[in-house]
């Protein structure tokens, strides 16, 4: 299945999806759906209260769309071995996320896979 910005849409059980963000309600994200985007990492904001992975995705009519993918706090992720260098700028990546309910280019992080096969987060 191919849409404008999404390469693949995957139906995952909500139970597989990472928990809601700790600092705020996760109500803006679709807990029933996981989608996959392919793009280039622009920036990994390794900041409190939550980290954000900024990804540039080719748009349907040329140009790029910047996606914002929210993840846990840098403190929590850091204790699990994640570092600012985990998502280096310029790297090509596939990212799975729970999308925003209103279709805006953002979502909650689920997992990622790099060109060399390395995965981060939940990627079954």
């Amino acid at each position, binding site marked *: 299945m191919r849409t404008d910005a999404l390469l693949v849409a995957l139906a995952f059980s909500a139970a597989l999806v990472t928990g809601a*963000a*700790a*600092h*705020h*309600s996760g*109500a*803006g994200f679709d807990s029933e759906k996981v989608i996959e985007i392919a793009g280039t990492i622009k920036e990994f*904001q390794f*900041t*409190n*209260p*939550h980290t*954000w992975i*900024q990804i540039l995705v080719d748009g349907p009519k040329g140009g790029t769309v*910047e996606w*914002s993918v*929210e993840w846990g*706090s*840098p*403190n*929590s992720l*850091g*204790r699990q071995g994640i570092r600012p260098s985990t998502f280096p700028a310029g790297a090509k990546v596939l990212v799975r996320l729970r999308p*925003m*309910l*209103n279709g*805006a*280019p*953002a979502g909650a992080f689920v997992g990622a896979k790099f060109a060399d096969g390395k995965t981060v987060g939940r990627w079954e």
Partner: protein
Amino acid sequence: MLTTARTLPIFVVVSITLVRGVAAAQGESATPRAYDTLPDWSGAWSMVGGTVFDRDTQTGEGGAITPGVRSHPPYNAEWEAIYKSHLERRDKNLFPDTISNCGVPAGFPRHFNLPDPYEFVVRPEQVWVLTENGPNVLRIYTDGRKHLEDQWATYTGDSVGHWEGDTLVFTTVALKGFRDKDVILDRTGLVLSDQSHTTTRIRKIDAATIQVQMTIEDPKALTKPWVVTKQFRKMPAGTRLYDYGCAENNRNPADVETGKTLILGPDGKPLNKE
């Protein structure tokens, strides 16, 4: 003419008298328990379970809003109506978490309902319960002082206590509660009034578990005492805690007009304002 040498002793005597006066007013009289007789609560600890304050407020598909099923908290009719209105707004994503905009403490008793690590620092004269999230500090005085008669209300209140064996028992008073609409207990919208006060018992029930039992009383909002128990599991040895700079990059503020939790795009504009 007084010389400096003659003036200094007078100053010192007056200063000591003033300090003693303040100490006496705060009831600092008892001798704190010796450090080496106190329990070892060192390390990092993580709350067991999610951040719903009381599991008995959460029932089935309808969540906490299911009428007639939820048993806690024992609100009177006026505060039950307040809570129900919060639940209805919560279900529409219009009940903001008071800490989403950064800047205010989580408050008590929410202090024992936070994600991320905790530290329980035991000293003879005080116990500090530190939370990475926030960050927040709960100071519990164990030096024999009493609550001030004229203590003004704050988010975390005033806590004084004592040891019963290896159990720390303390009371917390002078809480703002929901008076200024900026203290909640969890995201279901649980709130207490500015008349709430709590007796808390903390003890280590096994090598890896600290238990916190709170008996909450609130003559304005509750019909009877509300007992809530939280447990904290020991994290791996060597766990580090870090800054929690909530305002560093807060892309999820609550909209002050609607209460909706916003998600900001890379340009700082909301992606879900509508």
